[in-house]
């Protein structure tokens, strides 16, 4: 009898521990310390995905070679997994010395919890670093007028890519206005080509459509009201109009079949574009480099076209406005040791150099640093670089992606409701009602 009750409890225990085990498995550990070589070591987590992965690993290698007394150790994660992992690691006190991110609302939550260091005094002592950064990249790394995250990497506006081969075959011209877009959709569908490629399972991909439609229809003020916590800001008539336009697109089959199960981390959305299965794709400029690597002669053969999102007739937004990542941002973990923080600062300084800028330009990306014009012109990707450079510099508003600007709680609610909106399972009005509850949260 005794024996039997024990097994029964053990069994129940097994069943109990499962959900917790799942939760626990999400919190891995990669604590601070020293590398196997025994040198003082700072840690950093970066994202996978070529060609950026090699550039980032390259800058770490360069730093380690130039600084033989210390080391920076890099670990790589997939984009969507990283966003969850880093939050958990910070909460568990196990974050890397250098925290990679996109600034905005997530950074604010780190700052409020005292998890990242204020970099303002360091930058005041080293003005040459701050002076080399493009001014437009700084605000998203600032909270309450202090700099908590240093802009690095590259500027990534979201642009409308199109496949010139497909446009030629169907015999149509790239859209100049939103009206043109709506007219093109049935033409591509009739030709058996998906009008737009979209990796809908990742959700932030769908969000880019809303960002542009909100802006082009109602101007940047509509989302700024949400950001500033104004009551019922999502119910603005222009917001409802933008939400309705998106659902109209879904109903017209403007997005590729099965879009809601396509994942951006696997680059299948880009593959649809360069294999002529889709005509257009709204995506971040970083996909240019990926398509160049994966798409055969698609990019080098001049088959890839690009433009800023077209204006909507009668809309209030300036057609030069854009969305995306003004930069990527690096912060220093406040619980790292002073020794590690010193290494981290030396590493950050090593990223604000012409060498780093050149590495980004070489893969068709726009660096966050000043004084790169001549390098940009010499690049084999000069056309695309000039295009993104102009977008970034001429934009009246270069807004941060919504999910990065908002707090993590509001961002998750937003992404959740966007997925349902694209699934047509909620109406624009329901979307607004659901999201109004999260304003200011």
């Amino acid at each position, binding site marked *: 009898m005794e024996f039997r009750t024990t097994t029964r409890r*053990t*069994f129940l225990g097994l069943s109990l*521990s499962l959900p917790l085990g799942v*939760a626990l498995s999400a919190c891995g550990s990669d604590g601070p310390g020293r590398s196997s070589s025994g040198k003082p070591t700072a840690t950093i987590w970066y994202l996978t995905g070529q060609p950026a992965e090699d550039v980032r690993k390259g800058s770490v290698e360069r730093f380690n070679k130039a600084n033989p007394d210390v080391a920076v150790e890099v670990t790589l994660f997939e984009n969507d997994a990283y966003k969850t992992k880093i939050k958990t690691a910070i909460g568990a006190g196990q974050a890397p010395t250098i925290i990679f991110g996109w600034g905005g609302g997530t950074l604010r*939550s780190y700052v409020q*919890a005292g*998890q990242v260091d204020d970099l303002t005094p360091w930058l005041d002592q080293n003005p040459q670093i701050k002076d080399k950064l493009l001014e437009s990249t700084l605000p998203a790394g600032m909270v309450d007028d202090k700099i908590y995250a240093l802009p690095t990497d590259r500027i990534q506006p979201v642009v409308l890519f199109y496949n010139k081969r497909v446009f030629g075959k169907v015999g149509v011209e790239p859209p100049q206005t939103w009206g043109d877009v709506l007219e093109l959709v049935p033409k591509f569908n009739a030709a058996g080509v998906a009008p737009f490629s979209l990796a809908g399972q990742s959700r932030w991909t769908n969000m880019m459509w809303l960002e542009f439609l909100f802006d082009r229809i109602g101007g940047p003020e509509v989302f700024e009201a949400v950001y500033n916590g104004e009551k019922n800001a999502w119910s603005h008539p222009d917001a409802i109009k933008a939400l309705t336009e998106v659902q109209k697109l879904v109903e017209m089959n403007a997005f590729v079949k099965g879009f809601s199960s396509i994942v951006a981390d696997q680059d299948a959305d880009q*593959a649809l574009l360069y294999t002529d299965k889709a005509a257009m794709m709204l995506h971040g400029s970083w996909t240019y480099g990926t398509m160049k690597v994966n798409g055969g002669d698609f990019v080098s053969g001049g088959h890839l076209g690009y433009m800023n999102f077209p204006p909507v007739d009668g809309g209030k937004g300036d057609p030069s406005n854009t969305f995306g990542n003004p930069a990527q941002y690096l912060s220093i973990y406040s619980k790292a040791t002073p020794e590690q923080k010193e290494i981290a600062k030396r590493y950050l300084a090593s990223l604000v150099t012409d060498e780093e800028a050149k590495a980004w330009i070489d893969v068709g990306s726009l660096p966050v640093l000043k004084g790169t014009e001549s390098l940009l012109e010499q690049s084999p990707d000069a056309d695309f670089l000039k295009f993104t450079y102009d977008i970034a510099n001429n934009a009246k508003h270069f807004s941060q992606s919504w999910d990065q600007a908002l707090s993590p709680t509001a961002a998750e609610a937003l992404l959740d409701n966007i997925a349902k909106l694209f699934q047509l399972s909620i109406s624009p009005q329901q979307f607004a009602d659901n999201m109004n509850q999260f304003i200011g949260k």
Partner: protein
Amino acid sequence: MSAIASGAPAGSARRAAAPHTRDRVLPLLALPALLFFVAFGVVPLIGVLVLSFTTWDGIGEITFSGLTSWREVLADPQLAHGLWVTFQVMALSWLVQTPASLLLGVFLAGHQRYRAVLAVIFFIPLLLSSAAIAVAYQALLDPNFGLGAGLGIDLLVQDWLGDPKLAMGVIVFIVSWQFIPFHALIYQGGVRQIPRSMYEAAQIDGAGRVRQFFSITLPQLKYTIITSSTLMVVGSVTFFDLIFVLTQGGPGDATRVLALDMYKRGFQANLMGPASVIAVIIVLIGLGLALLLRRIGGASNPAASQLDGA
């Protein structure tokens, strides 16, 4: 039942032979398991219970907020939706898995050589990790680059993971594909325990194969069925990894089971309080279902208990 009746006196006879050492050794033997259970079962469980009465974003300070999280979750229609989706996964995968693994187990219980070879082949899906399975199926089912498009079979070119009903069907199919071998193994063991003499007697009485199956095999497997069902049902309450990788709970929230809802709230929306509430609810449901199935099976059955540990 007769096994228990005869088992009890045997146990007490042994105890009478060596009363002192056995009483002292038994708790010691249970100690390692108990320590693990407390460390990885009880302690986190208490932690989750405490967290469910707090507000915490996973990054900053934990503040107690009484029943706020509970009220929030219980008033959220997402909870009812999550329960319904979880129930669907549970019921459908039980309905698919039980008959299939029962028949397969009976088939594999035979001692013929080709059946032993087949048993090894059937076992393969169980050796693969759920994440790997999910990624592989995701690629196979892709409407644009998947199996259907590659082979040019239009029937296979469906929006498998993008249509709510199909996505649920796909999940049930993959879960079954993955776990039928495991349950077949349990049934195989169960069938092999049935005394041959029963079948011989039935044969003499003129019972055919089908009659033997329904009159001997099935009744004799009662406890095995309950064990296997418990593992399936309780397992599907906490099922997470495959769905997380395959659909992320989508399209929309069509496949967002309770465990996934918990994860999303806790680790994506930074709402650890409400996530802990869901975790407590999952624990209670799992506990309730396990107890219910034990009641159905009669409280005590040593064979089933041994398998529970597996």
